[in-house]
């Protein structure tokens, strides 16, 4: 295409600020003030549930039941209750660690469920990334007809909801006698095409000059892959790790379907948590907070990578 006819194609990368000068008229400042306040409100509302969960985890059981007695009393037909007001509090009357002590040292059940989550999610994250790196390398290095078709199938699979993919997963698990074992969740998780999509999009942007240079230096495909591609992708790998981790740390559908007789024993904490809120609610808040910690830590460490990673998947097409 002629460059003169298509002004979009030859834009210099530098931004030139010609028109975007700050306007300082009174209504403009007012508008910005209102927008700012609105943003603050939304942001606070967004963080509130998290803060409340953490705050409540430090309340003694007696305080919890005094505050939410009517809600978590385990009676399902709540309409029969005489409405007593709920007391939503930010700051506990008395900071108490007793729930944490119970969770961590006295009732191994919760820790066991936490471990169930870890043992399901860790292999999925690690191996999905490894398997996907190879596949993305293949998709990104050359684009043949075969590869385009396979990649397209991957995208379709990625876009299929669990309601669809769980049926084939179930059939395979049944055939291979994996039902009621962790492998029923781990194996399909490892081969889930989600990571392939993001990684391929990123790898296609690696300048071919870089690969050519490595080739001239005598690097084979394996060396190009491990010494050029993977290091270049380091930041995107981090963000993929975070995204996969969150998806599976949250898993509910798979354990419900793929675990049967041994469900009580194998279920991850994400499923188990909903079952304890009729018992000791103070404990439930503590467990909920503990369950949040790995996710929030990961987020704090990798926020920048995560944002870059999300931003890099701007469209469906490669």
């Amino acid at each position, binding site marked *: 295409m002629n460059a003169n006819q298509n002004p979009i194609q030859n834009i210099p990368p530098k931004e030139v600020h010609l028109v975007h000068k700050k306007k300082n008229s009174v209504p403009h400042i007012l508008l910005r003030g209102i927008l700012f306040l609105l943003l603050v409100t939304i942001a606070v509302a967004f963080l509130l549930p998290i803060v409340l969960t953490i705050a409540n985890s430090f309340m003694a059981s007696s305080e919890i039941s005094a505050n939410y007695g009517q809600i978590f009393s385990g009676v399902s037909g709540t309409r029969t209750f005489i*409405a007593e007001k709920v007391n939503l509090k930010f700051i506990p009357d008395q900071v108490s660690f007793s729930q944490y002590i119970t969770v961590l040292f006295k009732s191994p059940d919760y820790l066991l469920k936490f471990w169930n989550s870890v043992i399901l999610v860790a292999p999925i994250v690690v191996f999905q990334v490894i398997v996907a790196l190879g596949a993305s390398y293949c998709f990104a290095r050359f684009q043949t007809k075969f590869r385009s078709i396979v990649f397209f199938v991957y995208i379709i699979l990625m*876009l299929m909801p669990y309601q669809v993919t769980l*049926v084939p997963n179930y059939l395979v698990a049944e055939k291979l006698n994996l039902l009621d074992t962790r492998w029923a969740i781990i194996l399909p998780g490892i081969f889930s095409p989600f990571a392939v999509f993001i990684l391929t999009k990123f790898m296609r942007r690696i300048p071919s000059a870089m690969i050519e240079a490595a080739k001239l230096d005598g690097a084979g495909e394996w060396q190009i892959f491990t010494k050029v591609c993977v290091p270049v992708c380091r930041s995107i790998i981090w963000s993929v790790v975070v995204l996969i981790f969150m998806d599976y740390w949250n898993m509910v559908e798979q354990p419900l379907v793929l675990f049967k007789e041994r469900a009580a024993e194998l279920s991850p904490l994400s499923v188990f948590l*909903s079952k304890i809120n009729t018992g000791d609610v103070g404990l439930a808040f503590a467990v909920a907070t503990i369950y949040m910690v790995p996710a929030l830590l990961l987020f704090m460490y990798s926020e920048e990578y995560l944002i870059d990673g999300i931003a890099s998947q701007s469209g469906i097409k490669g």
Partner: protein
Amino acid sequence: MQEGTVSPPQKHYTQKQLLARQKRRMRRERLRTLPFLMPSFIGVLIFFVLPFLVVIYYSMIDNPITKNFVFLKNFSALLNNAAFKLAVKNTISFSVIAVPLAVILPLLLAIVLMGNIPGRSRFRTMFITPLMVPVASVVLIWQVVFHYNGVLNEITSIFGAEPVDWLKSQYGQIVLLVLFLWKNIGYNMILFMSALAAIPKDILEVATLEGAGPIRRFFSIKLRYLSSSIIFVALLSLINSFKVFREVYLLTGDYPFDSLYLLQHFMNNTFKSLDYQKLSAAAIIMSLVMIVIIGAMLFVDDKFGGDIEE
């Protein structure tokens, strides 16, 4: 040129031979990258593609033992199934509202944040934090908020409204919508922010110089550059809207109020009764619907964004 003329020590090849040789070398090089795909390819084949063929087969037989071919009978039985119809209705009515909101609200937020707002990255962090919080962890707080004796009713009662049992009434879907948006707005907002940042500034400046106001600039220029992202976000939100089952399950268990009975509930119950025919037919219908939607979106993407290079 002739083969084997000897003046330089190397052989001479015809143009054709050279081309063929290069082609062969290219093909060999391409083949060498194929092993990298194999683990993934085989895995996807075993765990997704091949069993899906079995699913197609199962959807057309009467049962796995006698294996009589009944063609579309399972599908018509499914479409007459009351539970399936309820699940479809609820899922559609949720997605139809949730997906557009999950596109529009983050887009507005992104536009506001890309303006001259102080503390942009702080806000970005706060908006994306819900994504990083496990659903199961905040479910307790949601229960406190939406319970009959909960916080929300307390607030509305100040304005004289009758208390509502949010999770066990027609309003259940509204609760769901709030939880869905809470979790997904940040992610979508980041996608839009990066798309907005990628719009060439010069074009906007030219438009401004030529007298286009902010609204005109938005609809005539930005929206065209954003079209790809909008479609991607819509598709992503659609898939995520199917995942609100997690919230519903954790809040209300296996048997929710009617308006919260979703497709995944139907699938779970069918898995429990091990009705392969029903399961397979449902999976096929859903995948066909998804494929149609994906196709339509790709088509729209081509139509509106096709002339804009990324």
